[in-house]
């Protein structure tokens, strides 16, 4: 499956809307095990993404994702700025240098998060969503049930990266806000694909 221009615009529009809708929930999750601002930070980034989307409707997907990456890097702050920013930048680079195969593009994003966050999986971070989603796409098993189960699988993990790691085992039983916002991103992708 290919990541087309029309899909990308629609996907990002949905992401902007759904992050705004879930701002309070993301802040709540982050209050429990972090610094309480994931929703606010992401919304700040989304305001900029929204401007980019309305400026032009026919950008090359790689250019669009690159602009989104820089918006997130400069506006989001916190750890999610550089993490989402790197993911979108790597996706942009993959499209620019390789091809537009959706599974490979998402995989490039996941690898960006792995590198930036220095994670390998199982640390209770957004990578625990990105990595299995990339694998699901590769194996044509990308669906809502699998996506939900990836998020649920992070619930009882002990955070060993990021601000939640300072809580040690007390982080168990809480959802990671980055994993939740990434689940929103991929729920939106599913909606576009369907």
């Amino acid at each position, binding site marked *: 499956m290919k990541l087309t221009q029309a899909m990308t615009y629609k996907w990002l529009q949905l992401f902007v809307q759904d992050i705004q809708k879930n701002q309070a929930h993301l802040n709540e999750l982050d209050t429990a095990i972090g610094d309480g601002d994931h929703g606010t*930070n992401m919304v700040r980034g989304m305001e900029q993404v929204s401007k980019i989307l309305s400026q032009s409707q026919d950008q090359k997907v790689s250019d669009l994702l690159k602009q989104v990456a820089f918006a997130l890097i400069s506006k989001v702050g916190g750890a999610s700025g550089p993490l989402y920013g790197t993911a979108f930048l790597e996706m942009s680079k993959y499209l620019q240098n390789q091809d537009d195969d959706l599974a490979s593009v998402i995989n490039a994003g996941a690898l960006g998060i792995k590198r930036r966050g220095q994670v390998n999986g199982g640390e209770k971070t957004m990578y625990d969503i990105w990595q299995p989603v990339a694998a699901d796409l590769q194996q044509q098993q990308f669906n809502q049930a699998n996506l939900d189960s990836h998020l649920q699988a992070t619930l009882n993990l002990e955070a060993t*990266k990021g*601000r939640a790691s300072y809580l040690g085992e007390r982080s168990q039983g809480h959802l990671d806000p980055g994993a939740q916002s990434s689940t929103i991103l991929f729920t939106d992708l599913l909606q576009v694909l369907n």
Partner: protein
Amino acid sequence: MKYGILIVSHVPEIAQGVAQLVAQAAPDISITYTGGTEEGQLGSSFELIQQAVQQNQGAEILAFYDLGSSKMNLEMVQETTTKVIHKFDVALVEGAYTAGTLAQIDSSWTTISQSLKKLQLRK
């Protein structure tokens, strides 16, 4: 000047305070710092770090930070600048102070990096 020092914190006052402390031991060293976001909130900002790097007078920069997102933003700046930035995963206060003291007396890279190795944290 061979080395400059860069302090990155989530809190403006921490960044400023550490820079103040280091300046006492390193009056001739260029020390630039940034803390918090552009809105003055707690956090870290790619653009503010970029500015602090540009303002630094050192030929090479010895960089110190506090928590995770300072590190990631610092790394992104490192990847996008032509300046040489050495990032140290060490205790912020003790690391920056050690580096400042040693840079002030023109210590070699080997001396500086080996002294900092002792202050390494898993961060």
